[in-house]
């Protein structure tokens, strides 16, 4: 950008630093308290230990919730990958009002407040007599991350030269062969990064899940319940692990976005 006077740059850095504290402060607190104990509102500085992490492995409730979260995440990602790709191809193949409308519908859950998406699904499940369960959660998450996968795949598809598919057909390949040999390899990185991002979003999804969840549930639900009752020390350990996991995950996702096309 334009060269700025020192004062202004210093000011910007100061504000950025402040924002950094705002964003990471709460998280550092959680990490901190996963290693140190708090007794009667006094920090025990000599209590550094991994005992909280150890306790975590014994907490069945948490571990079950974690497992559910992974299952939901995996399912939502799988479903949104398949449908997102199908829909992106549909849109790319032909311009039509139907496709434009369809695209709008796909984007809705992402654009609207999650509470609306959640409520509409809640009502839908009630009308169709579907019990709330992990399945309804999966549906809620899929609908939410679909837009992300769709957008990512479509962008990549549009960036690929149209003549690649034409060239493949021209050389005698069937549509299926064209998809497998030519299109899919070039979409691979986009699919992977979309999958990782979608998984991360699903992992942390709270608002929609709250509305469509049954009795078995995901980690955010468990945390939400614990909020009222009070946290046990192993929660901070879990939080720290989750933070580490999310960081790694997002770094991974961005690697795939950064990576140049095969050679």
């Amino acid at each position, binding site marked *: *950008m*334009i*060269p700025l*006077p020192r004062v*202004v740059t210093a*000011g*910007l850095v100061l*504000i*950025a630093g*402040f*924002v*950094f504290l*705002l*964003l990471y*402060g*709460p*998280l550092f*607190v*959680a990490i901190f308290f996963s290693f140190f104990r708090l007794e009667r*509102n006094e920090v025990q500085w000599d209590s550094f230990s991994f005992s909280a992490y150890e306790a975590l492995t014994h907490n069945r409730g948490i571990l079950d919730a974690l497992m559910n979260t992974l299952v939901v995440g995996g399912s939502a990602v799988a479903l949104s990958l398949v*449908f997102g790709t*199908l*829909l992106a191809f*549909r849109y790319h193949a032909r311009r039509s009002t139907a496709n434009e409308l*369809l695209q709008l*519908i*796909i984007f*809705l*859950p992402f*654009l*609207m*407040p*999650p*509470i*609306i998406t959640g*409520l*509409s*699904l*809640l*009502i839908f499940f009630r009308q169709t007599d579907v019990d709330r369960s992990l399945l309804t959660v999966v549906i809620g998450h899929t609908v939410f991350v*679909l837009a992300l996968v769709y957008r990512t795949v479509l962008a990549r598809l549009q960036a690929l030269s149209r003549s690649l598919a034409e060239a493949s057909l021209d050389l*005698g390949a*069937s*549509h*299926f062969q064209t998809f497998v040999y030519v299109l899919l390899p070039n979409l691979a990185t986009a699919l992977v990064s979309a999958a990782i991002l979608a998984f*991360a979003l699903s992992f*942390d999804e*709270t*608002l929609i899940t709250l509305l469509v969840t049954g009795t078995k549930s995901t980690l*955010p639900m468990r*945390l*939400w319940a614990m*909020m009222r009752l009070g*946290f046990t020390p192993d929660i901070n350990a879990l*939080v720290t692990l*989750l*933070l580490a996991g*999310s960081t790694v*995950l*997002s770094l991974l996702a961005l690697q795939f976005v950064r990576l140049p096309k095969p050679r």
Partner: protein
Amino acid sequence: MPYRPRIGRSSTDAAGELASARYLMTGLAYGLPILFILLPLALFLLQSFFYVENGQIIQTITVRNYVRFFADPIFVPVFVRTCLLCLGVAVITVVLGYPVAYLLASLEGRLKYTMTLVFVIPLLMSYIIKIYAIRSLLGSNGFLNRILTTLGLIDQPLTFLIFNLQAVMLTLSVILLPFAILPIFVALEKIPRNILEASADLGASSWQSFRDVILPLSLQGIAIGASFTFVLALGDFVTPQMVGGQSGFTFGRIIYSQFGLAFNWPFGSALSVLMLIVVLVVIIWTGRIVRPRYQP
């Protein structure tokens, strides 16, 4: 070279296979979004026109829910207050987010990549944990008060930071900050470097270049960031519940309670529809700004 015949399937059976596969794919493709997005929304809208009597949902069309919203003196003020609060959130996030985005845009190479990551990753961090952590930070026994007391800046712990609307606004701002930083950053990045060079070449000072060139061109990013945070704040019902206490009652909480204890789904749906209208207005209005006349 002599012409060689093709090896492969005959055209007829390949064509048949292709046709049925196509229909299947079309059906599937349309199925998911329509079934799980459009239909629920339609039902949701429909629900807002039903009403509740003796704990039962009566499925007859009526507008009494909407009438109640306007007639009953509780709801409109809360709605207005919530909108103002979310507007406040939008303003705070943009005001704090713009300098950060600007700083990021002015960096180069590795540093830019890393720092952008630093400010965007919090988006993926646990939502509940953030709220909880902020709550514990702001509470009377919280970290902030402890530090301020230890530093001797205050005698009594500050109580106005928690369990009220201000707390909701602060918490939401912290959570939604990255949503403002990102669009502004993207908009700044899009500004072609040679325009800035031209501005300098024509003699503009840094401030003038900023005011007359950068700011207008980054307006899109500001609009997107503001509307995004506004919409997300508006629909949030968890944060107010966790840090709002008794006085921090937002519209989202009212809606949520209709689906919980109050058990008035039709009314809740009507309130949500009203909220949705505001959201749509914001989105459309943003769309107008985001596509200014001078851009192709």
